[in-house]
């Protein structure tokens, strides 16, 4: 009597040879849903939007956006209907959303490069005082730049008419709409002083539309507006990549080579110098989990605190992990993903999880390092969906279940391969996984037809030569095809719905067999036997 049956079906463990596999594990588990410990098919993906030439997908609420460049996209505050994009052109951008329409503008506001041209007036009386002017740009969103260099100093009395010529031509992409003119005044008291103090500040004189104007300043000292607040404002650098929204804050982060940039809290356009950091390694990807920013590089990974209260780099604690694990899937732009418990990225040895202070290669129990390198990891794209990592490379697509705490039905699944080769993958806010394929966006496992699966058992072996002549297989809903394989050939039988024993013609006597199941029926049990008598007890 041959003792081999299968009542629980598991995924694959490529690092083990067929004979090493624990009972129930497979050598091939392709397109198969193992949630119930049975063999079930997935549904075909459902097309949700027609797209052409897209290589990046982003979903905001129910709106699907596509990009034809390898971009990184971040959202910011929930009430800010904009996206923040790096990688489309040579500078970071902010995208105004209006249904399907996107309007791209350069993120940040450039500083006026030259001082305003001020009429030279030198009045030398007891009432005269020295003043100067600066100008700032205001963009479409009302964001204000740092001031220009100050104009020449002039001496005027209160209310003296001063002609100011403003002639600028900022690049189109900033979408500058107006300019504010400030005048330097000295001698103000804040009211908090214990002694007489001379306070100097720049005060608003007025705002003009456009970037070319000639104005006459007749504003008296009693009529000036508020003081200038944008001395520390700095636009994000050219070539910034990896724009990331730090959760639980209103801070954006980005990188250029080994420099890490943070925006001022609540000011998405302002990346001040005081927040800039330089790491030892060049940054490849970043993910924010809570207010922690995980950074994968071409050397050591890092963990950076992204607290709101930080107004200087000293208070951003940086943890450089102990072991260098360079991220290698850098040219795909999607070689990392965030999970509820940390960042996962592609290294040469496997998928690395950065979680708190620990770094771990999470694929070593299923793929050894040499197995992993055969999977073309440098081409991998990742997504996290319902407790699993979806990983696609040029040679394989697979699902690796990680989160057995949140999803406690992952006992049998662990690792299965799938046939889809999406260019990009995104999990929506509603918890659905969208795949970007050649002709559009598809929702994973949501179509109206079943997708055939293929499952091949581990080795059915015995210390003696034997011949399998009978197989009992129980399938629901649909029939399946059973393929009995030995080293010299195979025998194929189609099993109808129900619990059936079918005879298999002899393949000779062997020590090792495998059983391959294909189809869309739910297979719950398989038994094999060497004779009709053998099957009587099964």
């Amino acid at each position: 009597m041959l003792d081999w049956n299968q009542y629980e079906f598991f995924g694959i463990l490529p690092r083990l040879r067929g004979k090493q596999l624990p009972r129930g594990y497979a050598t091939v588990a392709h397109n198969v849903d193992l949630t119930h410990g049975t063999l079930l098919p997935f549904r075909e993906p459902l097309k949700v939007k027609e797209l052409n030439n897209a290589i990046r997908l982003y979903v905001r609420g129910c709106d699907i956006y596509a990009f034809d460049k390898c971009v990184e996209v971040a959202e910011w505050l929930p009430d800010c209907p904009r996206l923040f994009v790096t990688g489309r052109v040579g500078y970071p951008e902010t995208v105004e959303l209006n249904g399907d329409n996107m309007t791209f503008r350069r993120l940040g506001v450039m500083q006026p490069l030259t001082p305003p041209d001020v009429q030279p007036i030198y009045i030398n009386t007891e009432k005269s005082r020295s003043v100067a002017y600066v100008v700032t740009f205001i963009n479409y969103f009302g964001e204000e730049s740092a001031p220009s260099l100050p104009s020449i100093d002039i001496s005027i009395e209160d209310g003296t008419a001063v002609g100011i010529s403003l002639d600028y031509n900022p690049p189109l992409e900033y979408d500058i709409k107006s300019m504010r003119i400030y005048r330097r005044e000295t001698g103000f008291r804040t009211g908090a002083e214990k002694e007489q103090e001379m306070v100097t500040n720049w005060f608003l004189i007025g705002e003009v539309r456009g970037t070319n104007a000639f104005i006459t300043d007749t504003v008296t000292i009693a009529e000036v507006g508020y003081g200038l607040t944008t001395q520390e404002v700095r636009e994000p650098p050219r070539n910034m990549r990896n724009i990331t929204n730090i959760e639980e804050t209103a801070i954006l982060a980005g990188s250029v080579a080994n420099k890490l940039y943070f925006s001022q809290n609540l000011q998405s356009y302002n990346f001040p110098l005081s927040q800039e950091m330089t790491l030892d390694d060049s940054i490849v990807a970043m993910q924010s989990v809570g207010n922690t920013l995980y950074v994968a590089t071409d050397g050591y990974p890092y963990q950076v605190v992204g607290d709101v209260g930080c107004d200087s780099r000293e208070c951003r604690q940086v943890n450089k992990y102990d072991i260098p694990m360079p991220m290698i899937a850098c040219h795909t732009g999607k070689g990392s993903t965030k999970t509820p418990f940390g960042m996962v990225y592609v290294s040469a040895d496997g998928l690395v999880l950065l979680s708190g202070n620990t770094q771990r290669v999470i694929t070593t129990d299923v793929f050894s390092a040499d197995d992993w390198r055969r999977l073309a990891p440098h081409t991998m794209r990742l997504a996290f969906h319902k407790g699993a990592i979806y990983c696609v490379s040029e040679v394989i697509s697979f699902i690796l279940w990680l989160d057995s705490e949140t999803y406690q039905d992952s006992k049998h699944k662990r690792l299965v391969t799938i046939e889809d080769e999406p260019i990009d993958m995104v999990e929506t806010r509603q918890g659905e996984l969208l795949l970007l394929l050649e002709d559009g966006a598809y929702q994973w496992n949501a179509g109206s037809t079943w997708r055939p699966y293929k499952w091949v058992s581990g080795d059915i072996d015995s210390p003696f030569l034997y011949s399998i002549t009978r197989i009992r297989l129980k399938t629901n809903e649909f029939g399946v095809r059973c393929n009995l394989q030995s080293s010299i050939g195979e025998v194929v039988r189609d099993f109808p719905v129900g619990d059936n024993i079918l005879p298999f013609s002899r393949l000779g006597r062997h020590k090792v067999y495998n059983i391959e199941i294909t189809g869309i029926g739910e297979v719950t049990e398989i038994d094999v036997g060497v004779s009709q008598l053998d099957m009587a007890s099964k």
Partner: protein
Amino acid sequence: MEFEVIRMPQTEEQLEQTFQQNGPFLSAMYTENDERIHGPENFIMDHWVMLWASGAGFLLAAKEQGNIIGLGMCVKFRDMWYGKQRLEINRYSVANEVNDEKVVVRAMMDYLLDNRTLLMFDELYLLHRTVDGGEYKELVWRANQT
């Protein structure tokens, strides 16, 4: 390469300065064939000022290290027949020292395309003029291609 949309001068001095900077490129836009047909009087300046003053066009300068290496005369209008917003590089000229003028023209078009949502056009055309006076209009980009 950097790009500048040359705006309408506000003063006579600025106008003169702009003409001086861009004059050689504007003159080069008046081809030998134009001269043969329309005579030696270069009307490109008038054409440009008319477009500029009416808000129907602008000049796009491609620069390298602050020096102009290419100038395109861009015209934007709503197509009368199909209702599409068109942007056309109607005439262009490239500095003699540039090895491959196609690279500069391509970069100009890329710049316009990168900013297409701000410039709000549905189609981008490039008008080629051959030495023998031939013209053909190339459709470079059309909306609805992602």
